[in-house]
């Protein structure tokens, strides 16, 4: 059986070997062409050349912000301080489960990317900060790290190149905010995962106050393919501004939920209706959140766009992490947004006033509206609180909590009004 659902219209680059048990071990991975890119990079390329290829490829960070990966690497200062590479595997954006599958099925794909990226920035230690709930994945990843050490892909003098890299898998303890890169670095150092004030950026002062690059799992996994086949090869997919392929974790009211990897110029509507099979039989699609709960909600008729960063942005949302959540007409939007805001209220680290107080306040108001005790003036109040939260805090969690509130009021105000005026819900039961 193919990996839960597969579709010929996918472009399976990272997910090619999903579902193949043999690909998990190092022998199976080498049979499938693994570690050839590493040999190429260490054997025939300088660190700057590796960075150059990744820069040319236009690979953008897959964690959510979409910052060009090669450019990020080139920010690393070239002094004699120790440098670190941190792989952000703390995948906790609601609706996102792509990194988990990369690590579950192809742990060596990630490790190869880590080693190449480590070489490019001349890191001495790579930390893979993995979400603590991924207990089974940690076991797989640790097994893979052991295998890589045994074969000489990690440790001293990798493949006789003179390049040393140690790799540690570090378990998080379950905080969403530890997925924010500077929160992650604090957590890695044994502190509370409270995001740091930027500047200084991690490239200047990151883990243990040393230059650090933080990259998402999917970003690093893409690196080996780019180094092996070149920037032009990678640019055959996607658009000018968003080259390559992207994994979409599709969940919610869909007939075939799961991970789908598509070229970044794929149509979002086709992804939802063709690949995922659309909403269940007899139900109409109500809304789609294309990139994890931190991006604006799209109405069902707004999704005829490219899945590229700029395509989704032009359609009024963001690509984010690629965690696609589909909601059909049985969804109560007020309840869905209330659940999301409760999540942010729970996960707010509490350092900034606006976020700590604002998320909880929003949650209480939404709970009251859902109970049927809402007031008309609650809608402008929700919008005003959201405006006061966005862009006023150290990290973007506060903005993320405001996003579903604002976008749902813009697009589904009638659902709020039904709760407030009539005490009814427009969801089709």
């Amino acid at each position, binding site marked *: 059986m193919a990996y839960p659902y597969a579709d010929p219209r996918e472009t399976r680059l990272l997910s090619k070997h999903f579902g193949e048990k043999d690909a998990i071990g190092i022998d199976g991975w080498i049979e499938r062409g693994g570690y050839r890119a590493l040999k190429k990079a260490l054997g025939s390329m300088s660190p700057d050349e590796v960075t150059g290829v990744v820069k040319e490829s236009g690979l953008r960070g897959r964690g959510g912000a979409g910052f060009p990966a090669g450019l990020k690497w080139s920010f690393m200062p070239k002094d004699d301080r120790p440098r670190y590479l941190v792989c952000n595997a703390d995948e906790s954006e609601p609706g996102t489960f792509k990194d988990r599958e990369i690590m579950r099925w192809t742990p060596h794909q990630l490790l190869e990317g880590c080693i190449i990226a480590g070489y490019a920035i001349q890191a001495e230690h790579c930390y893979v900060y993995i979400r603590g709930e991924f207990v089974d994945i940690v076991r797989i990843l640790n097994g893979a790290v052991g295998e890589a050490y045994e074969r000489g892909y990690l440790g001293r003098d990798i493949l006789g190149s003179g390049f040393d890299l140690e790799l540690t898998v570090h378990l998080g303890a379950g905080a969403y905010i530890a997925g924010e890169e500077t929160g992650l670095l604090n957590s890695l150092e044994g502190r509370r995962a409270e995001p740091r004030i930027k500047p200084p950026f991690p490239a200047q002062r990151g883990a243990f106050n040393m230059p650090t690059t933080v990259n998402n799992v999917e970003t690093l996994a893409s690196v080996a393919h780019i180094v092996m086949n070149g920037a032009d090869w990678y640019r055959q997919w996607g658009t000018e501004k968003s080259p390559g392929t992207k994994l979409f974790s599709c969940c919610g009211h869909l007939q075939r939920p799961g991970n789908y990897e598509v070229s970044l110029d794929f149509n979002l509507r086709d992804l939802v209706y063709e690949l995922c099979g659309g909403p269940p039989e007899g139900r109409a699609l109500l809304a789609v959140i294309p990139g994890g709960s931190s991006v604006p909600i799209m109405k069902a008729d707004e999704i005829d766009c490219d899945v590229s960063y700029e395509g989704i942005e032009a359609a009024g949302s963001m690509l984010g992490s690629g965690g696609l959540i589909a909601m059909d007409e049985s969804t109560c939007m007020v309840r869905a947004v209330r659940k999301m805001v409760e999540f942010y209220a729970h996960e707010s680290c509490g350092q900034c006033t606006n976020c700590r107080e604002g998320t*909880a*306040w929003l949650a209480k108001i939404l709970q009251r509206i859902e109970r049927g005790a809402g007031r008309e003036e609650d809608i402008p109040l929700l919008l005003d609180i959201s405006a006061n939260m966005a862009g*006023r*805090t150290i990290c973007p969690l506060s903005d993320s909590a405001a996003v579903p509130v604002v976008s749902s009021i813009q697009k589904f105000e009638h659902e709020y009004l039904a709760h407030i005026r009539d005490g009814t819900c427009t969801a089709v039961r």
Partner: protein
Amino acid sequence: MERKQQPVVTVRIDGVPVAVPQGTTILEAAERLGIVIPRYCYHPGLSAPAVCRMCLVEVEGAPKPAPSCVQQVQDGMVVHTASAEARKARRAAVEFLLVNHPLDCPICDAAGQCELQDYAFETGQLRTRNVEPKACWVATR
């Protein structure tokens, strides 16, 4: 160790130019002009966590208000500590702080020597928009 002469930068705060050594924060530079930017979590003897969000000011050309206790001045920077944007940010911070704060000034021992009270008056928030119970939110099903 040889001490290097700190380069001096000139910034304009609320229309008044001031020359300060590079690395000075906006908040410190403003104090040289006698402008006190409201703050709670900042103390000159401690590290600045920049979490109370009271000291946000408007910096021309910046996309969002800047925490003046950590943002360092740059040459040619134009800062507004009392513009509509800055006042709106401050008002929001006070409102958020009051959401879970008892509004019992008439019987409170701190009344009259309370910066929160002063700022609440200053930002004109004698009534709260909050009608929720002052308690920790509890997740519902």
